[in-house]
Each structure stands twice: as structure tokens, then as C-alpha cells.
């Protein structure tokens, strides 16, 4: 009862409330949405600690058992402590960890930024290798994928326009007509599927999350 029925009831009631507040502008119902969202953000914030617990626990275990690569686990934990330490120090000294010139922002600028940006830029390589491998004219479908990709690629750079002046126009047409049509079809499906899924969740039919 406490473990299954009450949670299902909570899901149903909060879900229903979110639907009702969409249709009722009158105070206080219409204002519930905004308030509840900030509650949501607060609760989600707490859960990060669960993550840290799992991450540290796993790597401490690795260390204890001297599993292969335990040296890297030390790095990971040191990195975590470094970020937390600088963050707390900056909070106290500067009033906010995100204050300009704080050690925490130094960590952000010279560690987080290059790491994020470099991981992100790996996509330039992967998009090339994926294109090379997958764009083979094996079937009609694959050929369409290939041709559309090539035209749009050429239409996007000055070089394409230099080869054939119509490439940018053709690329634009593909984006606004066939691309828009298919995207629309997929989105209609996604909306209906999402609607059905949400309905199943509210009604307690879909309850995997409470396994």
C-alpha cells in the first residue's frame, strides 16, 4: 500500500493537477504550475548527492580491491574533491562560486571548458567517419540519404555555390519541403505516442518506474 498504491496516487494527482492548471487561469490554480516547477528543481538538486554517493562508492571499492586501473580512480576522486573544495572556498570567500575571478571559475575556464569543447569537437571527426561508412548507395533508401546529405553539404559552403550556383537553393528547398514534411510526420507520431505514454503513466498502467 505505502510502497505501491500511494506512489501511484501521487503520480495521478500531481499529473491531473498539471493538466487542470493548464485550463484554469483563475488564481490560485493557474499559478500552481510555476510554483511546482521550482519545487521540482529543488528536489532534483538534492538527487545529485545520490549520484556522488554512487560514484565515490564505486571507485573506493575499486581502490580497496586494487582492481585494474585503480590509479585512475584516485584521479577521479581527487578531481571531485578539487572541484568541491574550490567551490566551497569560493562560496565563502567570494559570496558565490560563480563570482568572477574566483578559483572555482578558474577551474571552470581552464579545465571544464577545454574538456567540454574538445569532447564536443570530436564530432567533426565522427561525423566524417559515420558519413563515409553509412552513405553507400546500397538501397533506394540509402541512396536518398546519401544524395540529400551531399546536396545540403554542398549548399552550405561557398565552395558548393562555386561548383554550381543552384546548390544553396536546392539545399534550402530540401530543408523546407521534404525535410519539413517528414519531420512533421515524425513529430505527430511522437506527440501521440507521448500522449498515450503519459496517459498510461497517470492511470498507473505503465509503472515500470516503480519496480
Amino acid at each position, binding site marked *: 500500500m505505502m510502497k505501491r498504491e500511494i506512489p501511484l496516487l501521487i503520480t495521478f494527482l500531481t499529473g491531473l493537477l498539471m493538466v487542470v492548471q493548464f485550463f484554469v487561469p483563475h488564481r490560485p490554480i493557474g499559478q500552481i504550475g510555476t510554483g511546482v516547477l521550482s519545487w521540482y528543481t529543488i528536489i532534483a538538486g538534492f538527487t545529485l548527492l545520490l549520484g556522488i554517493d554512487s560514484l565515490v562508492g564505486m571507485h573506493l571499492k575499486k581502490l580497496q580491491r586494487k582492481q585494474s586501473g585503480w590509479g585512475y580512480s584516485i584521479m577521479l576522486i581527487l578531481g571531485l574533491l578539487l572541484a568541491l573544495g574550490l567551490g566551497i572556498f569560493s562560496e565563502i570567500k567570494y559570496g558565490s562560486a560563480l563570482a568572477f575571478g574566483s578559483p572555482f571559475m578558474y577551474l571552470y575556464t581552464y579545465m571544464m571548458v577545454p574538456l567540454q*569543447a574538445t569532447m564536443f569537437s570530436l564530432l567533426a571527426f565522427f561525423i566524417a567517419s559515420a558519413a563515409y561508412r553509412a552513405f553507400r548507395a546500397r538501397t533506394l533508401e540509402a541512396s536518398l540519404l546519401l544524395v540529400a546529405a551531399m546536396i545540403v553539404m554542398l549548399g552550405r559552403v561557398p565552395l558548393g555555390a562555386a561548383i554550381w550556383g543552384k546548390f544553396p537553393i536546392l539545399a534550402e528547398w530540401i530543408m523546407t519541403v521534404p525535410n519539413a514534411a517528414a519531420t512533421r510526420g515524425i513529430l505527430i507520431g511522437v506527440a501521440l505516442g507521448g500522449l498515450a505514454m503519459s496517459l498510461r503513466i497517470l492511470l498507473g498502467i505503465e509503472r515500470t518506474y516503480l519496480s
Partner: protein
Amino acid sequence: MNWLAKLEKIDRRWIFLGVALVVAAPLLLGLKTSVDITPPVKNTYEAIDRLPPGSVVMVSIDYDASTMPENQPMLLAVLRHAFQKNLKIILMGHWPLGLPVGTLGLDQVAREMHKTYGVDYVNLGFRPGTAAVMVNLGTEIRNVFPSDYKGVPLDSLEMVKNVHNYNDIRLLVGIEAGDTYEFWIIYVQARFGLKMAMGTTAVMAPTAYKYLQSGQLVGLIGGLKGAAEYESLIAHPGIGLAGMPAQSAGHLLIILFIILGNIGYFLSRRKKA
């Protein structure tokens, strides 16, 4: 014919090497290309160019590190142009993590062009609250930013002594990576009539275009290409212009690999048949 069939299965590391080379080489060699100047960028340029020396321009940093490759070149080009025309810059931002990247760019250009802090430019920093911040700046900047990003009171800074609200600012340039620019238009352009131009990522540019058509924006710089155009207008090539040959080469290389792969595929298929 055997080596041709191998084209079907090139080790992807050769592809990686190829991409690295075609992108790095043009940058290193400083290859020059010309870009066509499009009206939205030209208009932004002219909006700044026409301002009398000493006018105050506000620059808003509404992006962070993740879109730096696209946004930073715009910021640098606009700042260079403004300083060249002896305009005064007020920098601020609405993204909590945008300030470090914005400050980086401002300090770099100021050093390059021998500008003095507090006289030629001021960095206000970041305050949370987007729309509320925007509206409050309309009455008195000091209500939101009593001091600059380092805590120096505004009244002790020569340049902003007589700057109180949007009436004292001639143009806003927003460098944007999200929907903050729409807030600028709704809350400031509409209410206070401040003239504004935006530099957005390439993905956002088509959406932002409608504000250009409606006259709410005087100019628009879109993506790395837009930055390249601006650099070409101020005749100060930077990462934008340098990036254009690398872009074309990168695209060409990918297409080349696709073609090679297909040649390999057809040859090996014929062999089997």
C-alpha cells in the same frame, strides 16, 4: 583493382587524420578567402560605423563556452570595430557562465588596441533575473549594478559617470546562443526603443531573421560565416575568415570520402557478381 576495392574499408583513423589536416592546414597557413557580404551583417557594421565617437555601446554576453567557437569571433570583430571608431563599451551578460568568456574577449581586444579600463570600457558583469535586469536597467543602471564586476563603484569610473539608463546608450549588440535575445527585443527594444543588433549561432539565425524583417533588429550576424563577413568588413581577418577555407575543405573531404567508399562498394560488388 584490388587496392580500389580496399576503398570500401578505410581505417577510420585515416579519415580522422584527413579531417585534422584539412582543418588545421588552412588555419596554420593563413589561407585567405573572400566572403560575400550579406545585408544583415553589413547593416550591423553600418549601425556601429555611423555612431559618433564617444557614443556608448552596450554588449551583452548571452552565451557560454559551449558555443564559443561561433560566438567569440563575432564579439572580437564587433569590439575591434567599436574601439577603432573610438566608441565606449559597456559589457554585461545574462548567462551565469558567460562572463568569463566575454571578459576574455574584451580584455584581449582592449589590450590589443591600447584602451583603458574605466575610460574606454567598463565590464558590469552578471546579475540573475534576465527580464527583470533588462527592465531595471531602463531606469537606472546603478539599481542593478551598483558596482562593476570587480566591485568598483560605478560612480568612480570616468566613462559611466553620466550613463544612467538606455537613454545614454546608442546601440546594443547581443552575442547570443539561446532565446535571451528575444527577451532583449520584447523587454527593451519594445519598451525603451533601444536600437539593437544581434550576433547569433548559425542554427538560430533563420529564426532571428524575422525580427530583422520587422525592423526590431537593425542587424544580424549569423554563425561563423557572419563573423567572417564582419572581419572582412573591418579588414581584420580573424578566426572567422580563417575558418572559411577550413570549412570548405572539411566539407569537400567528407564528400570525397563518401565517393571513395561508394567506388569501393561498387567494385567489390561487381567482383562478387
